[in-house]
């Protein structure tokens, strides 16, 4: 019955959302792999990128997007130097709570900057034309959906090549498998971490560009809710491996897209409860992750 209500429009939107969430999942998973740190402030990187796009709305579009990438990558490198580096090797709780504090800090700063013109929220309108639909075989698909899927596919492919075909990729995978042993064998820790952090920053910037197309009004809590949902997806999928984390991110984006599009509004009031009950169920049955087949849960590293 529910399926009958799912039309192609809903499905394509859900795939678009899934693609964006998959990219965020990769960004979070990359840093977790090498640092064992769940970066709750990842959404604030996206938020910073979105604000950059809003403030550079008057610039030519390529320049504005370049500025967005520059700001987000610089911010994520700064985060790694100032915050992650001193915390290396601390307990997961301390690292996670510190990234809460950083998330709050960046939000508070964004609020002050935003309120300079006395209205909350800025509009990033330069590339919203991508919201227009194009017709593919008689079905309307928004351009941004195609762009999101293409960008996600391209980014994932490029990342896969980088991780499997280059030396630095090999080092990164070695560090993610066992950081100490990798260091003993000559992997340079700071370089590997910096590469992961930059990659995750690039992904955050790409997400910022694609999200502002669909939600042009940028406020300090931009992408906050999405980050929480993606974190849930990443853990449900299996955070220990990049591809299970990515799949988890895509799944939770796709499922929430389909459910939100398919159910009438008066039926969705208890939808969050149902979704989170499902999350609990999956975690109880497969604590190492829904997609982590054939492997026992990795012991948390000290």
């Amino acid at each position: 019955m529910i399926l009958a209500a799912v039309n192609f429009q809903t499905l394509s939107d859900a795939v678009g959302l899934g693609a964006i969430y998959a990219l965020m999942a990769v960004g979070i998973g990359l840093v977790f792999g090498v640092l064992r740190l769940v970066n709750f402030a990842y959404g604030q990187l996206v938020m910073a990128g979105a604000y950059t796009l809003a403030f550079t709305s008057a610039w030519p579009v390529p320049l504005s997007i370049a500025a967005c990438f520059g700001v987000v990558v610089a911010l994520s490198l700064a985060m790694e130097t100032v915050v992650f580096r001193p915390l290396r090797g601390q307990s997961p709780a301390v690292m996670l709570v510190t990234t809460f504090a950083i998330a709050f800090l960046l939000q508070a700063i964004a609020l002050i900057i935003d309120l300079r013109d006395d209205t909350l929220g800025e509009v990033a309108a330069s590339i919203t034309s991508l919201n227009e639909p194009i017709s593919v075989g008689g079905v309307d698909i928004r351009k941004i959906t195609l762009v999101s899927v293409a960008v996600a596919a391209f980014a994932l492919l490029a990342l896969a090549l980088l991780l499997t075909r280059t030396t630095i990729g090999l080092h990164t995978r070695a560090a993610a498998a066992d950081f100490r042993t990798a260091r003993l064998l000559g992997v340079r820790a700071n370089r590997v971490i910096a590469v992961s952090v930059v990659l995750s920053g690039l992904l955050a910037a790409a997400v910022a560009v694609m999200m502002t197309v669909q939600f042009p009004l940028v406020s300090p809590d931009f992408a906050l809710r999405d980050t929480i949902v993606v974190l849930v997806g990443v853990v449900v999928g299996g955070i220990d491996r990049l591809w299970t984390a990515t799949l988890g991110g895509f799944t939770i984006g796709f499922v929430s897209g389909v459910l939100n599009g398919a159910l009438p509004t008066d039926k969705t009031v208890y939808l969050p409860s149902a979704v989170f009950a499902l999350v609990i169920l999956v975690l109880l049955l497969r604590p190492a992750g829904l997609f982590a087949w054939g492997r026992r849960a990795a012991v948390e590293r000290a």
Partner: protein
Amino acid sequence: MRRGADAVVELLGPSSLVVAVGLVATTASLANQVYFMNALVSVAIVVAIYVFVGNSGVLSFGQISFVAVGAFAAGVMTVPLESKQGVLTTLFPFLRDHTIGNVPSLLLAAGLGGVFAFLVGLPLMRLSGLAAGIATFAVLEITHNILREWTKIGPGATTLSLVPETTGPLQATIGALAVIAVAFAYQRSRLGRQLRASREDPLAARGVGVHVHRQRLWAFTLSGALAGLAGGLLVHQLGSITTEQVYLELTFLTLAMLVVGGLTSLWGAVVGALAISGLDSFLSQAENGVHVLGVKLDLPAGTRLVFLASIMALVLILRPSGLTGGRELRFPRRA
């Protein structure tokens, strides 16, 4: 002898801090009193979280659900009958047509919090690490969603108001002291020590016969009951409450208080709660202009959160084990 003295300091240190804050609260002007009361209620909430998170080492984002259940139970049941039947018309009849006093409402809040935590903990306490964090977060989401939408048990998305403001300085102090005393008794009990052993080394603890799952469940239930009580204190302090006030922001803030103070000690929980809420109050005063040591300090509007978040981050970066280092208060010892 020495151990006895340690125990006395371990309990009296946090308690006397709380009593001191309570005493200052009674002398403060009515406008300032609210800051001290906030601090005392925060102590109750943070210590309740500490009972589970601190003793077990398992991160939980779900304890605020028990605060929420306690707050709404105590709130809904104490709204005076004549106004309740006019405002909260959608309630189940037995909730709508009965009202209880202040103390029974606090006991009810504690009881419901404990029962709810026990039921939730029964399946969830098998998990640890990030899976436990996300699962307990899911509990928070479900609790928030149901409290917000189910108008037969509460006000739903609207504000619950007209709750008697019975949490004055006295009740806040007694409540915080009670929570501290229970937390102290628990962590020195056989059960508490078994759980703390499992925090340090789960395998070794299991090896000497500790039933980790069961011990975590006890602590989770006790923590839920204390959190429920703290919720009751909270709603009677505020007089009105919405579901948003006992949701994400409170979860992050109270966890931050616990970690800033020092995750693994009762002393840390109390110090963290008082330090952060004290700092928060000071900064919100400073936004309106305040005199410190003869110098007028006047922060630009909106900078309170920037300062608060920076200081929290700074403490965690410079002192990851918290202000107290996660240790209990002790007499200084000669080597």
